Protein backbone atom coordinates (compact mmCIF):
# COMPACT_ATOMS: atom_id res chain seq x y z
CA UNK A 1 0.00 0.00 0.00
CA UNK A 2 1.30 3.39 -0.91
CA UNK A 3 0.82 6.24 1.53
CA UNK A 4 -1.55 8.98 0.38
CA UNK A 5 0.59 11.57 -1.32
CA UNK A 6 -0.32 15.22 -0.93
CA UNK A 7 -1.50 16.38 -4.33
CA UNK A 8 -0.14 19.53 -5.93
CA UNK A 9 -3.50 21.25 -5.59
CA UNK A 10 -5.71 20.38 -2.62
CA UNK A 11 -9.37 21.20 -2.05
CA UNK A 12 -8.81 24.71 -0.82
CA UNK A 13 -6.33 25.23 -3.63
CA UNK A 14 -8.95 24.23 -6.22
CA UNK A 15 -11.41 26.62 -4.61
CA UNK A 16 -8.88 29.43 -4.92
CA UNK A 17 -7.92 28.58 -8.50
CA UNK A 18 -11.62 28.38 -9.41
CA UNK A 19 -12.20 31.78 -7.81
CA UNK A 20 -9.29 33.24 -9.76
CA UNK A 21 -10.59 31.70 -12.99
CA UNK A 22 -14.08 33.06 -12.30
CA UNK A 23 -12.62 36.52 -11.70
CA UNK A 24 -10.68 36.24 -14.96
CA UNK A 25 -13.95 35.70 -16.81
CA UNK A 26 -16.16 38.05 -14.83
CA UNK A 27 -13.88 41.08 -14.76
CA UNK A 28 -13.40 41.38 -18.56
CA UNK A 29 -17.07 40.62 -19.19
CA UNK A 30 -18.45 43.18 -16.75
CA UNK A 31 -15.86 45.78 -17.68
CA UNK A 32 -15.56 45.40 -21.45
CA UNK A 33 -18.76 43.68 -22.60
CA UNK A 34 -21.32 45.33 -20.34
CA UNK A 35 -21.88 48.88 -21.61
CA UNK A 36 -20.81 51.75 -19.41
CA UNK A 37 -24.30 53.02 -18.62
CA UNK A 38 -25.48 49.66 -17.29
CA UNK A 39 -25.82 49.02 -13.58
CA UNK A 40 -23.75 45.86 -14.04
CA UNK A 41 -20.81 47.68 -15.58
CA UNK A 42 -17.55 47.31 -13.68
CA UNK A 43 -15.69 50.64 -13.72
CA UNK A 44 -12.11 50.44 -14.91
CA UNK A 45 -10.73 51.92 -11.70
CA UNK A 46 -12.17 48.91 -9.87
CA UNK A 47 -10.45 46.55 -12.31
CA UNK A 48 -7.13 48.09 -11.31
CA UNK A 49 -8.10 48.05 -7.65
CA UNK A 50 -8.82 44.31 -7.86
CA UNK A 51 -5.56 43.86 -9.75
CA UNK A 52 -3.78 45.59 -6.89
CA UNK A 53 -5.42 43.22 -4.41
CA UNK A 54 -4.20 40.24 -6.41
CA UNK A 55 -0.66 41.65 -6.54
CA UNK A 56 -0.80 41.92 -2.75
CA UNK A 57 -2.15 38.37 -2.61
CA UNK A 58 0.92 37.18 -4.52
CA UNK A 59 3.14 39.05 -2.06
CA UNK A 60 1.27 37.32 0.77
CA UNK A 61 1.76 33.88 -0.79
CA UNK A 62 5.48 34.64 -1.11
CA UNK A 63 5.61 35.67 2.53
CA UNK A 64 3.65 32.62 3.65
CA UNK A 65 6.13 30.36 1.87
CA UNK A 66 8.93 31.53 4.16
CA UNK A 67 6.95 32.34 7.29
CA UNK A 68 4.39 29.58 7.30
CA UNK A 69 6.58 26.73 6.10
CA UNK A 70 10.04 27.78 7.11
CA UNK A 71 9.50 29.90 10.22
CA UNK A 72 11.24 32.92 8.75
CA UNK A 73 9.17 35.87 9.93
CA UNK A 74 10.27 38.38 7.34
CA UNK A 75 9.36 41.92 8.27
CA UNK A 76 11.02 43.15 5.11
CA UNK A 77 9.27 41.48 2.21
CA UNK A 78 8.20 44.90 1.02
CA UNK A 79 11.85 45.35 0.02
CA UNK A 80 11.60 42.65 -2.64
CA UNK A 81 8.16 43.88 -3.69
CA UNK A 82 9.57 47.40 -4.03
CA UNK A 83 12.63 46.29 -6.00
CA UNK A 84 10.47 44.38 -8.46
CA UNK A 85 8.27 47.46 -8.68
CA UNK A 86 11.22 49.74 -9.38
CA UNK A 87 12.50 47.41 -12.09
CA UNK A 88 9.11 47.64 -13.79
CA UNK A 89 8.97 51.38 -13.10
CA UNK A 90 12.32 51.89 -14.82
CA UNK A 91 11.02 50.08 -17.90
CA UNK A 92 7.88 52.21 -17.90
CA UNK A 93 9.96 55.41 -17.51
CA UNK A 94 12.04 54.51 -20.53
CA UNK A 95 8.86 53.97 -22.53
CA UNK A 96 7.86 57.61 -22.02
CA UNK A 97 10.57 58.70 -24.47
CA UNK A 98 10.29 62.30 -25.64
CA UNK A 99 6.73 62.66 -24.29
CA UNK A 100 8.00 63.90 -20.91
CA UNK A 101 7.54 67.48 -19.77
CA UNK A 102 11.12 68.33 -20.81
CA UNK A 103 10.90 66.31 -24.01
CA UNK A 104 14.24 64.59 -23.55
CA UNK A 105 14.13 61.40 -25.61
CA UNK A 106 16.52 59.50 -23.32
CA UNK A 107 16.43 61.00 -19.86
CA UNK A 108 13.33 60.80 -17.66
CA UNK A 109 12.03 64.14 -16.45
CA UNK A 110 13.50 63.93 -12.96
CA UNK A 111 16.97 63.41 -14.42
CA UNK A 112 16.66 66.46 -16.63
CA UNK A 113 15.49 68.40 -13.60
CA UNK A 114 18.48 67.18 -11.58
CA UNK A 115 20.90 68.08 -14.40
CA UNK A 116 21.86 64.53 -15.32
CA UNK A 117 23.86 64.60 -18.55
CA UNK A 118 23.48 60.95 -19.38
CA UNK A 119 21.61 57.89 -18.26
CA UNK A 120 23.25 56.18 -15.24
CA UNK A 121 24.71 52.77 -16.15
CA UNK A 122 22.15 50.84 -14.16
CA UNK A 123 19.36 52.26 -16.29
CA UNK A 124 20.83 50.69 -19.42
CA UNK A 125 18.78 47.94 -20.93
CA UNK A 126 15.60 48.84 -19.10
CA UNK A 127 14.01 50.13 -22.31
CA UNK A 128 13.89 46.51 -23.45
CA UNK A 129 11.03 44.63 -21.81
CA UNK A 130 12.65 41.16 -21.62
CA UNK A 131 15.62 42.67 -19.80
CA UNK A 132 13.36 44.56 -17.38
CA UNK A 133 11.33 41.38 -16.80
CA UNK A 134 14.53 39.50 -16.04
CA UNK A 135 15.55 42.19 -13.57
CA UNK A 136 12.15 41.96 -11.88
CA UNK A 137 13.16 38.42 -10.94
CA UNK A 138 16.93 38.79 -10.69
CA UNK A 139 17.30 41.85 -8.47
CA UNK A 140 15.01 40.70 -5.63
CA UNK A 141 16.24 37.13 -6.13
CA UNK A 142 19.87 38.11 -5.81
CA UNK A 143 19.25 40.27 -2.77
CA UNK A 144 17.18 37.50 -1.20
CA UNK A 145 19.90 34.98 -1.95
CA UNK A 146 22.72 37.09 -0.53
CA UNK A 147 20.73 38.10 2.51
CA UNK A 148 19.53 34.56 3.13
CA UNK A 149 22.91 33.01 2.60
CA UNK A 150 24.62 35.36 5.05
CA UNK A 151 21.89 35.27 7.68
CA UNK A 152 21.08 31.57 7.59
CA UNK A 153 24.69 30.46 7.40
CA UNK A 154 25.36 32.44 10.56
CA UNK A 155 22.35 30.69 12.10
CA UNK A 156 20.47 33.92 12.72
CA UNK A 157 16.88 32.99 13.59
CA UNK A 158 13.77 34.24 15.38
CA UNK A 159 13.35 37.87 16.33
CA UNK A 160 16.94 38.69 15.41
CA UNK A 161 16.28 37.65 11.86
CA UNK A 162 13.00 39.58 11.79
CA UNK A 163 14.79 42.70 12.97
CA UNK A 164 17.43 42.38 10.27
CA UNK A 165 14.80 41.99 7.55
CA UNK A 166 13.12 45.10 8.90
CA UNK A 167 16.45 46.95 8.82
CA UNK A 168 16.97 45.78 5.25
CA UNK A 169 13.80 47.36 3.95
CA UNK A 170 14.35 50.47 6.05
CA UNK A 171 17.86 50.90 4.66
CA UNK A 172 16.51 50.54 1.13
CA UNK A 173 13.85 53.13 1.85
CA UNK A 174 16.47 55.64 3.03
CA UNK A 175 18.67 54.86 0.03
CA UNK A 176 15.85 55.27 -2.47
CA UNK A 177 14.78 58.57 -0.92
CA UNK A 178 18.11 60.07 -1.99
CA UNK A 179 18.09 61.94 -5.30
CA UNK A 180 21.66 60.69 -5.90
CA UNK A 181 20.29 57.19 -6.19
CA UNK A 182 19.12 58.16 -9.69
CA UNK A 183 15.71 56.60 -9.19
CA UNK A 184 13.53 59.64 -8.71
CA UNK A 185 14.19 60.17 -5.01
CA UNK A 186 11.20 61.18 -2.96
CA UNK A 187 8.83 61.29 -5.92
CA UNK A 188 9.79 57.91 -7.28
CA UNK A 189 8.82 56.93 -10.79
CA UNK A 190 5.48 57.96 -12.27
CA UNK A 191 3.68 59.52 -15.27
CA UNK A 192 3.89 56.23 -17.14
CA UNK A 193 2.60 56.23 -20.69
CA UNK A 194 3.02 52.87 -22.43
CA UNK A 195 3.57 49.27 -21.58
CA UNK A 196 4.67 46.99 -24.43
CA UNK A 197 3.54 49.68 -26.84
CA UNK A 198 0.01 49.98 -25.44
CA UNK A 199 -1.19 52.99 -23.43
CA UNK A 200 -1.05 51.97 -19.79
CA UNK A 201 -4.22 53.90 -18.92
CA UNK A 202 -6.36 52.25 -21.60
CA UNK A 203 -9.29 50.15 -20.47
CA UNK A 204 -8.19 47.04 -22.36
CA UNK A 205 -4.66 47.31 -20.96
CA UNK A 206 -6.06 47.61 -17.45
CA UNK A 207 -8.02 44.40 -17.95
CA UNK A 208 -4.94 42.72 -19.41
CA UNK A 209 -2.88 43.77 -16.39
CA UNK A 210 -5.55 42.35 -14.11
CA UNK A 211 -5.48 39.06 -16.02
CA UNK A 212 -1.68 38.97 -15.90
CA UNK A 213 -1.75 39.51 -12.14
CA UNK A 214 -4.35 36.78 -11.68
CA UNK A 215 -2.22 34.42 -13.75
CA UNK A 216 0.89 35.33 -11.76
CA UNK A 217 -0.97 34.66 -8.52
CA UNK A 218 -2.09 31.24 -9.74
CA UNK A 219 1.44 30.40 -10.90
CA UNK A 220 2.96 31.71 -7.69
CA UNK A 221 0.58 29.55 -5.70
CA UNK A 222 1.51 26.48 -7.75
CA UNK A 223 5.24 27.14 -7.31
CA UNK A 224 4.76 27.56 -3.57
CA UNK A 225 2.69 24.37 -3.45
CA UNK A 226 5.33 22.49 -5.39
CA UNK A 227 7.91 23.63 -2.89
CA UNK A 228 5.81 22.65 0.11
CA UNK A 229 4.26 19.27 -0.81
CA UNK A 230 7.50 17.68 -1.98
CA UNK A 231 10.14 16.15 0.27
CA UNK A 232 11.78 19.56 0.08
CA UNK A 233 8.72 21.10 1.73
CA UNK A 234 8.66 18.44 4.41
CA UNK A 235 12.27 19.20 5.24
CA UNK A 236 11.43 22.90 5.24
CA UNK A 237 8.73 22.27 7.84
CA UNK A 238 11.15 20.09 9.81
CA UNK A 239 13.59 22.99 9.77
CA UNK A 240 10.84 25.30 10.96
CA UNK A 241 9.99 23.04 13.90
CA UNK A 242 13.38 21.64 14.92
CA UNK A 243 16.17 23.19 12.90
CA UNK A 244 19.09 21.76 14.83
CA UNK A 245 17.61 18.25 14.64
CA UNK A 246 17.72 18.35 10.85
CA UNK A 247 21.46 18.97 10.99
CA UNK A 248 22.00 15.71 12.85
CA UNK A 249 20.21 13.92 10.03
CA UNK A 250 22.72 15.42 7.62
CA UNK A 251 20.64 18.27 6.19
CA UNK A 252 22.02 21.77 5.79
CA UNK A 253 19.09 23.96 6.86
CA UNK A 254 20.78 27.10 5.54
CA UNK A 255 20.56 25.71 1.98
CA UNK A 256 16.87 24.90 2.32
CA UNK A 257 16.06 28.27 3.84
CA UNK A 258 18.11 30.22 1.32
CA UNK A 259 16.37 28.50 -1.59
CA UNK A 260 12.92 29.19 -0.16
CA UNK A 261 13.84 32.77 0.69
CA UNK A 262 15.22 33.41 -2.80
CA UNK A 263 12.16 32.00 -4.55
CA UNK A 264 9.93 33.97 -2.20
CA UNK A 265 11.86 37.18 -2.91
CA UNK A 266 11.44 36.63 -6.66
CA UNK A 267 7.70 36.08 -6.24
CA UNK A 268 7.47 39.27 -4.21
CA UNK A 269 9.37 41.05 -6.99
CA UNK A 270 6.87 39.88 -9.60
CA UNK A 271 4.04 41.09 -7.36
CA UNK A 272 5.66 44.51 -7.15
CA UNK A 273 6.20 44.64 -10.91
CA UNK A 274 2.51 43.92 -11.54
CA UNK A 275 1.43 46.39 -8.87
CA UNK A 276 3.29 49.39 -10.33
CA UNK A 277 1.57 49.77 -13.73
CA UNK A 278 -1.83 49.31 -12.08
CA UNK A 279 -1.34 52.02 -9.45
CA UNK A 280 0.74 54.19 -11.78
CA UNK A 281 3.56 55.02 -9.37
CA UNK A 282 6.40 53.54 -7.39
CA UNK A 283 8.16 55.56 -4.72
CA UNK A 284 10.36 54.83 -1.70
CA UNK A 285 7.27 54.68 0.49
CA UNK A 286 6.83 51.11 -0.73
CA UNK A 287 9.92 50.19 1.29
CA UNK A 288 8.40 51.56 4.49
CA UNK A 289 8.60 48.95 7.27
CA UNK A 290 4.87 49.36 7.94
CA UNK A 291 4.08 47.94 4.48
CA UNK A 292 6.01 44.79 5.24
CA UNK A 293 4.34 44.45 8.60
CA UNK A 294 0.94 44.90 7.00
CA UNK A 295 1.74 41.98 4.71
CA UNK A 296 2.47 39.85 7.79
CA UNK A 297 -0.98 40.76 9.11
CA UNK A 298 -2.64 39.65 5.86
CA UNK A 299 -1.00 36.26 6.20
CA UNK A 300 -1.89 35.95 9.88
CA UNK A 301 -5.50 36.90 9.25
CA UNK A 302 -5.91 34.52 6.33
CA UNK A 303 -4.06 31.65 7.96
CA UNK A 304 -0.35 31.13 8.13
CA UNK A 305 0.98 28.01 6.46
CA UNK A 306 -1.99 27.54 4.14
CA UNK A 307 -0.96 29.66 1.09
CA UNK A 308 -4.65 30.03 0.12
CA UNK A 309 -5.25 31.78 3.44
CA UNK A 310 -2.42 34.19 2.76
CA UNK A 311 -3.97 35.20 -0.56
CA UNK A 312 -7.44 35.45 0.97
CA UNK A 313 -6.13 37.49 3.90
CA UNK A 314 -4.43 39.94 1.54
CA UNK A 315 -7.60 40.48 -0.46
CA UNK A 316 -9.90 40.77 2.56
CA UNK A 317 -7.69 43.08 4.60
CA UNK A 318 -7.06 45.32 1.62
CA UNK A 319 -10.74 45.41 0.79
CA UNK A 320 -11.42 46.42 4.40
CA UNK A 321 -8.69 49.03 4.05
CA UNK A 322 -10.31 50.47 0.93
CA UNK A 323 -13.71 50.65 2.62
CA UNK A 324 -12.45 51.96 5.97
CA UNK A 325 -10.02 54.53 4.63
CA UNK A 326 -12.89 55.82 2.50
CA UNK A 327 -15.39 55.99 5.35
CA UNK A 328 -13.20 56.76 8.37
CA UNK A 329 -9.69 57.66 7.21
CA UNK A 330 -8.33 58.07 10.73
CA UNK A 331 -9.65 54.76 11.99
CA UNK A 332 -7.84 52.46 9.58
CA UNK A 333 -4.62 51.94 11.53
CA UNK A 334 -6.57 51.30 14.71
CA UNK A 335 -8.76 48.86 12.84
CA UNK A 336 -5.72 47.07 11.44
CA UNK A 337 -4.07 46.86 14.83
CA UNK A 338 -7.27 45.61 16.46
CA UNK A 339 -7.67 43.03 13.70
CA UNK A 340 -4.19 41.68 14.33
CA UNK A 341 -4.73 41.48 18.07
CA UNK A 342 -8.13 39.82 17.72
CA UNK A 343 -6.93 37.27 15.18
CA UNK A 344 -3.89 36.44 17.29
CA UNK A 345 -6.02 35.95 20.38
CA UNK A 346 -9.13 34.26 19.02
CA UNK A 347 -8.17 32.77 15.69
CA UNK A 348 -4.48 31.91 15.88
CA UNK A 349 -4.75 29.74 12.78
CA UNK A 350 -6.36 32.48 10.73
CA UNK A 351 -9.50 32.20 8.64
CA UNK A 352 -8.49 29.32 6.39
CA UNK A 353 -6.65 27.45 9.13
CA UNK A 354 -9.77 27.59 11.31
CA UNK A 355 -12.05 26.52 8.46
CA UNK A 356 -9.83 23.58 7.61
CA UNK A 357 -9.89 22.53 11.24
CA UNK A 358 -13.69 22.66 11.29
CA UNK A 359 -14.48 20.99 8.01
CA UNK A 360 -11.44 18.90 7.28
CA UNK A 361 -11.73 15.27 8.31
CA UNK A 362 -9.11 13.98 10.67
CA UNK A 363 -7.27 12.30 7.88
CA UNK A 364 -7.21 15.41 5.76
CA UNK A 365 -6.02 17.41 8.73
CA UNK A 366 -3.19 14.98 9.33
CA UNK A 367 -1.91 15.64 5.83
CA UNK A 368 -1.67 19.35 6.42
CA UNK A 369 1.10 20.92 8.38
CA UNK A 370 -0.71 22.32 11.40
CA UNK A 371 -0.68 26.06 11.40
CA UNK A 372 1.74 27.11 14.09
CA UNK A 373 1.24 29.95 16.48
CA UNK A 374 1.65 33.43 15.19
CA UNK A 375 4.38 34.43 17.59
CA UNK A 376 7.76 33.33 16.23
CA UNK A 377 9.22 30.44 18.12
CA UNK A 378 12.06 32.00 20.02
CA UNK A 379 13.26 29.15 22.10
CA UNK A 380 15.70 27.06 20.17
CA UNK A 381 15.99 23.79 21.97
CA UNK A 382 18.54 23.91 24.75
CA UNK A 383 21.60 21.78 25.03
CA UNK A 384 20.25 18.27 25.10
Amino acid sequence: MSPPRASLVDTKGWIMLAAIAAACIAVPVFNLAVPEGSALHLPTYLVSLFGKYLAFALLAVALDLVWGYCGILSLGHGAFFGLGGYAMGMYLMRQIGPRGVYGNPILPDFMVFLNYKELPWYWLGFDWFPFAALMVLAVPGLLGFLFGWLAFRSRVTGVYLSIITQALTYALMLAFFRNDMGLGGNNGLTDFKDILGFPVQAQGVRVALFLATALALALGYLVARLMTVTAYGKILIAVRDAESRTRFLGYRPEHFKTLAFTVSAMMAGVAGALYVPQVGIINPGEFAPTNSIEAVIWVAVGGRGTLVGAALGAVLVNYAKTVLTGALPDAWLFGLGALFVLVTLFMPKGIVGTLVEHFGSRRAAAKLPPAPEIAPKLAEEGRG
Partner: protein
Amino acid sequence: MSEAAVLERPIAPSGSHAPDMRLTSALLYLDDVQVTFDGYRALRGLSLTLDKGEMRAIIGPNGAGKTTMMDCITGKTRPDTGRIVFDGIVDLTKLDEPAIADLGIGRKFQKPTVFESHTVADNILLALKGPRAAFASLFGWRNRVEAEKIERLLTKVGLIEHRSRPAADLSHGQKQWLEIGMLLAQDPKLLLVDEPVAGMTDHETAETATLLREIAKDHAVVVIEHDMHFVRALQCRVSCLHEGSVLAEGSIDVVSADPKVVEVYLGR
Protein backbone atom coordinates in the same frame (compact mmCIF):
# COMPACT_ATOMS: atom_id res chain seq x y z
CA MET B 1 33.69 15.72 3.51
CA SER B 2 36.29 18.45 3.67
CA GLU B 3 39.89 17.62 3.06
CA ALA B 4 40.92 19.27 6.28
CA ALA B 5 39.13 16.64 8.28
CA VAL B 6 41.28 13.82 6.99
CA LEU B 7 44.13 13.47 9.42
CA GLU B 8 47.23 15.30 8.32
CA ARG B 9 49.68 12.70 9.45
CA PRO B 10 48.00 9.36 9.44
CA ILE B 11 50.21 7.17 11.55
CA ALA B 12 50.59 3.83 9.90
CA PRO B 13 51.99 1.20 12.24
CA SER B 14 55.76 1.19 11.72
CA GLY B 15 57.00 -1.54 9.43
CA SER B 16 53.59 -2.01 7.92
CA HIS B 17 53.55 -1.82 4.15
CA ALA B 18 49.81 -2.03 3.85
CA PRO B 19 48.38 1.01 2.04
CA ASP B 20 45.86 1.39 4.85
CA MET B 21 46.34 4.90 6.17
CA ARG B 22 44.20 4.33 9.21
CA LEU B 23 45.47 5.54 12.50
CA THR B 24 43.61 2.91 14.38
CA SER B 25 41.42 -0.04 13.63
CA ALA B 26 38.85 1.32 16.06
CA LEU B 27 35.64 2.81 14.67
CA LEU B 28 35.72 5.67 17.12
CA TYR B 29 38.74 6.89 18.98
CA LEU B 30 38.61 9.80 21.41
CA ASP B 31 42.04 10.98 22.38
CA ASP B 32 42.51 13.32 25.35
CA VAL B 33 39.43 15.43 24.59
CA GLN B 34 39.05 18.59 26.68
CA VAL B 35 35.99 20.85 26.75
CA THR B 36 35.59 23.93 28.91
CA PHE B 37 32.36 25.95 29.23
CA ASP B 38 32.95 29.33 30.86
CA GLY B 39 35.67 27.95 33.05
CA TYR B 40 33.80 24.74 33.85
CA ARG B 41 35.76 21.75 32.62
CA ALA B 42 33.09 19.45 31.21
CA LEU B 43 35.55 16.99 29.68
CA ARG B 44 39.02 16.55 31.17
CA GLY B 45 41.16 14.47 28.91
CA LEU B 46 38.49 11.97 27.93
CA SER B 47 39.88 9.00 26.00
CA LEU B 48 37.72 6.21 24.72
CA THR B 49 37.92 3.55 22.04
CA LEU B 50 35.02 1.85 20.35
CA ASP B 51 35.53 -1.08 18.00
CA LYS B 52 33.60 -1.71 14.83
CA GLY B 53 30.28 -3.32 15.57
CA GLU B 54 30.70 -2.88 19.29
CA MET B 55 27.94 -1.83 21.66
CA ARG B 56 29.00 0.27 24.62
CA ALA B 57 27.02 1.60 27.53
CA ILE B 58 28.10 4.86 29.13
CA ILE B 59 27.09 5.45 32.72
CA GLY B 60 28.06 8.08 35.24
CA PRO B 61 26.60 10.71 37.55
CA ASN B 62 25.04 13.93 36.28
CA GLY B 63 27.70 16.32 35.04
CA ALA B 64 30.10 13.50 34.22
CA GLY B 65 30.25 14.73 30.62
CA LYS B 66 28.23 11.99 28.93
CA THR B 67 26.08 14.25 26.78
CA THR B 68 28.98 16.64 26.17
CA MET B 69 30.91 13.68 24.80
CA MET B 70 28.09 13.02 22.31
CA ASP B 71 27.98 16.73 21.45
CA CYS B 72 31.68 16.55 20.60
CA ILE B 73 31.33 13.44 18.48
CA THR B 74 28.40 14.87 16.50
CA GLY B 75 29.96 18.30 15.96
CA LYS B 76 27.61 20.27 18.19
CA THR B 77 30.46 21.21 20.50
CA ARG B 78 34.03 21.75 19.37
CA PRO B 79 36.61 20.41 21.86
CA ASP B 80 39.33 22.78 23.04
CA THR B 81 41.98 20.13 22.56
CA GLY B 82 42.13 16.48 21.66
CA ARG B 83 41.17 14.43 18.67
CA ILE B 84 38.12 12.39 17.80
CA VAL B 85 39.01 9.95 15.06
CA PHE B 86 36.23 8.16 13.19
CA ASP B 87 36.91 5.11 11.09
CA GLY B 88 40.62 5.55 11.73
CA ILE B 89 40.98 8.37 9.27
CA VAL B 90 38.62 11.33 9.82
CA ASP B 91 39.08 13.90 12.57
CA LEU B 92 35.54 14.77 13.60
CA THR B 93 36.61 17.91 15.47
CA LYS B 94 37.13 19.59 12.09
CA LEU B 95 33.61 18.91 10.79
CA ASP B 96 30.13 20.33 11.41
CA GLU B 97 26.95 18.42 12.24
CA PRO B 98 25.66 17.65 8.72
CA ALA B 99 29.09 16.51 7.54
CA ILE B 100 29.42 14.19 10.53
CA ALA B 101 25.91 12.82 10.04
CA ASP B 102 26.85 12.24 6.42
CA LEU B 103 29.82 10.10 7.45
CA GLY B 104 27.43 7.72 9.13
CA ILE B 105 26.99 8.87 12.70
CA GLY B 106 23.40 9.06 13.90
CA ARG B 107 22.16 10.43 17.17
CA LYS B 108 19.12 10.06 19.37
CA PHE B 109 18.68 12.89 21.80
CA GLN B 110 18.07 12.72 25.52
CA LYS B 111 14.78 14.54 25.05
CA PRO B 112 13.07 12.74 22.16
CA THR B 113 13.29 15.10 19.22
CA VAL B 114 11.03 14.16 16.35
CA PHE B 115 9.32 16.38 13.78
CA GLU B 116 6.04 16.84 15.58
CA SER B 117 3.92 18.26 12.77
CA HIS B 118 4.91 15.46 10.39
CA THR B 119 3.35 12.04 10.36
CA VAL B 120 5.25 9.13 11.84
CA ALA B 121 5.93 7.82 8.33
CA ASP B 122 7.22 11.19 7.13
CA ASN B 123 9.63 11.34 10.07
CA ILE B 124 11.15 8.10 8.80
CA LEU B 125 11.08 9.36 5.22
CA LEU B 126 13.13 12.43 6.12
CA ALA B 127 15.63 10.30 8.02
CA LEU B 128 16.20 7.75 5.23
CA LYS B 129 19.79 7.48 4.08
CA GLY B 130 20.45 9.13 0.73
CA PRO B 131 21.32 12.45 -0.91
CA ARG B 132 20.09 15.37 1.15
CA ALA B 133 20.70 18.43 -1.06
CA ALA B 134 17.94 21.03 -1.30
CA PHE B 135 17.44 20.74 -5.07
CA ALA B 136 17.51 16.94 -4.96
CA SER B 137 14.70 16.94 -2.42
CA LEU B 138 12.48 19.03 -4.70
CA PHE B 139 12.27 16.47 -7.47
CA GLY B 140 14.64 13.73 -6.38
CA TRP B 141 14.38 10.20 -5.06
CA ARG B 142 12.98 11.13 -1.66
CA ASN B 143 9.68 11.91 -3.41
CA ARG B 144 9.49 8.37 -4.77
CA VAL B 145 10.34 6.23 -1.76
CA GLU B 146 8.35 3.01 -1.64
CA ALA B 147 5.95 2.83 1.26
CA GLU B 148 7.14 -0.69 2.05
CA LYS B 149 10.60 0.58 2.87
CA ILE B 150 9.22 2.92 5.51
CA GLU B 151 6.72 0.36 6.76
CA ARG B 152 9.43 -2.23 7.32
CA LEU B 153 11.23 0.18 9.62
CA LEU B 154 8.05 1.16 11.42
CA THR B 155 7.23 -2.50 12.00
CA LYS B 156 10.66 -2.97 13.51
CA VAL B 157 10.09 -0.22 16.08
CA GLY B 158 6.46 -1.22 16.66
CA LEU B 159 4.88 1.93 15.26
CA ILE B 160 3.29 0.57 12.08
CA GLU B 161 -0.23 1.18 13.45
CA HIS B 162 0.60 4.83 13.96
CA ARG B 163 2.18 5.61 10.58
CA SER B 164 -0.37 8.24 9.53
CA ARG B 165 -0.61 10.02 12.88
CA PRO B 166 1.24 13.26 13.52
CA ALA B 167 4.31 12.50 15.60
CA ALA B 168 3.07 15.05 18.14
CA ASP B 169 0.29 12.63 19.10
CA LEU B 170 2.68 9.87 20.16
CA SER B 171 3.38 9.05 23.79
CA HIS B 172 6.79 9.80 25.22
CA GLY B 173 7.94 6.20 24.85
CA GLN B 174 6.63 5.99 21.30
CA LYS B 175 8.56 9.13 20.41
CA GLN B 176 11.69 7.48 21.76
CA TRP B 177 11.03 4.52 19.47
CA LEU B 178 10.29 6.73 16.52
CA GLU B 179 13.62 8.40 17.04
CA ILE B 180 15.32 5.01 17.15
CA GLY B 181 13.43 4.18 13.94
CA MET B 182 14.80 7.37 12.39
CA LEU B 183 18.28 6.29 13.42
CA LEU B 184 17.74 2.96 11.69
CA ALA B 185 16.49 4.76 8.58
CA GLN B 186 19.72 6.74 8.54
CA ASP B 187 21.52 3.40 8.60
CA PRO B 188 24.62 4.90 10.22
CA LYS B 189 27.84 3.08 11.02
CA LEU B 190 27.62 4.40 14.55
CA LEU B 191 24.49 5.11 16.59
CA LEU B 192 24.69 7.40 19.58
CA VAL B 193 21.70 6.85 21.82
CA ASP B 194 21.21 9.23 24.74
CA GLU B 195 18.94 7.92 27.52
CA PRO B 196 16.63 5.85 25.34
CA VAL B 197 14.44 4.52 28.16
CA ALA B 198 13.90 7.68 30.19
CA GLY B 199 10.19 7.86 30.97
CA MET B 200 9.45 4.33 29.77
CA THR B 201 7.57 1.63 31.62
CA ASP B 202 9.46 -1.51 32.66
CA HIS B 203 7.87 -3.41 29.82
CA GLU B 204 8.86 -0.75 27.27
CA THR B 205 12.37 -0.66 28.74
CA ALA B 206 12.78 -4.40 28.25
CA GLU B 207 11.55 -4.16 24.67
CA THR B 208 13.95 -1.30 23.97
CA ALA B 209 16.86 -3.36 25.28
CA THR B 210 15.89 -6.19 22.93
CA LEU B 211 15.60 -3.76 20.04
CA LEU B 212 19.00 -2.18 20.73
CA ARG B 213 20.66 -5.59 21.05
CA GLU B 214 19.26 -6.49 17.67
CA ILE B 215 20.46 -3.22 16.15
CA ALA B 216 23.90 -3.81 17.65
CA LYS B 217 24.26 -6.96 15.56
CA ASP B 218 25.14 -4.91 12.51
CA HIS B 219 25.84 -1.41 13.88
CA ALA B 220 28.18 0.07 16.44
CA VAL B 221 26.12 1.59 19.23
CA VAL B 222 26.92 3.87 22.15
CA VAL B 223 24.15 4.09 24.75
CA ILE B 224 24.06 6.57 27.59
CA GLU B 225 21.77 5.36 30.35
CA HIS B 226 21.15 5.69 34.06
CA ASP B 227 18.89 2.67 34.40
CA MET B 228 21.25 -0.08 35.61
CA HIS B 229 18.73 -2.86 34.90
CA PHE B 230 18.58 -1.69 31.35
CA VAL B 231 22.36 -1.43 31.08
CA ARG B 232 22.65 -4.97 32.38
CA ALA B 233 20.10 -6.13 29.81
CA LEU B 234 22.24 -4.69 27.02
CA GLN B 235 24.94 -7.27 27.82
CA CYS B 236 27.80 -5.10 26.62
CA ARG B 237 30.94 -3.35 27.83
CA VAL B 238 30.36 -0.43 30.15
CA SER B 239 32.34 2.78 30.62
CA CYS B 240 31.72 4.87 33.71
CA LEU B 241 32.45 8.57 33.25
CA HIS B 242 33.19 10.87 36.14
CA GLU B 243 34.17 14.53 36.04
CA GLY B 244 34.92 14.44 32.35
CA SER B 245 37.04 11.34 32.04
CA VAL B 246 36.71 7.57 32.17
CA LEU B 247 36.67 6.25 35.71
CA ALA B 248 36.26 2.57 35.01
CA GLU B 249 35.65 0.32 32.06
CA GLY B 250 34.75 -3.33 31.63
CA SER B 251 31.83 -5.68 31.93
CA ILE B 252 28.85 -4.53 33.95
CA ASP B 253 29.85 -6.79 36.84
CA VAL B 254 33.41 -5.48 36.96
CA VAL B 255 32.35 -1.84 36.69
CA SER B 256 29.55 -2.05 39.23
CA ALA B 257 31.86 -3.77 41.68
CA ASP B 258 34.57 -1.15 41.24
CA PRO B 259 34.86 0.73 44.56
CA LYS B 260 35.44 4.08 42.80
CA VAL B 261 32.24 3.63 40.75
CA VAL B 262 30.32 2.67 43.86
CA GLU B 263 31.70 5.76 45.58
CA VAL B 264 30.80 8.37 42.94
CA TYR B 265 27.82 6.87 41.18
CA LEU B 266 26.05 3.83 42.46
CA GLY B 267 26.18 4.72 46.11
CA ARG B 268 26.96 2.32 48.89
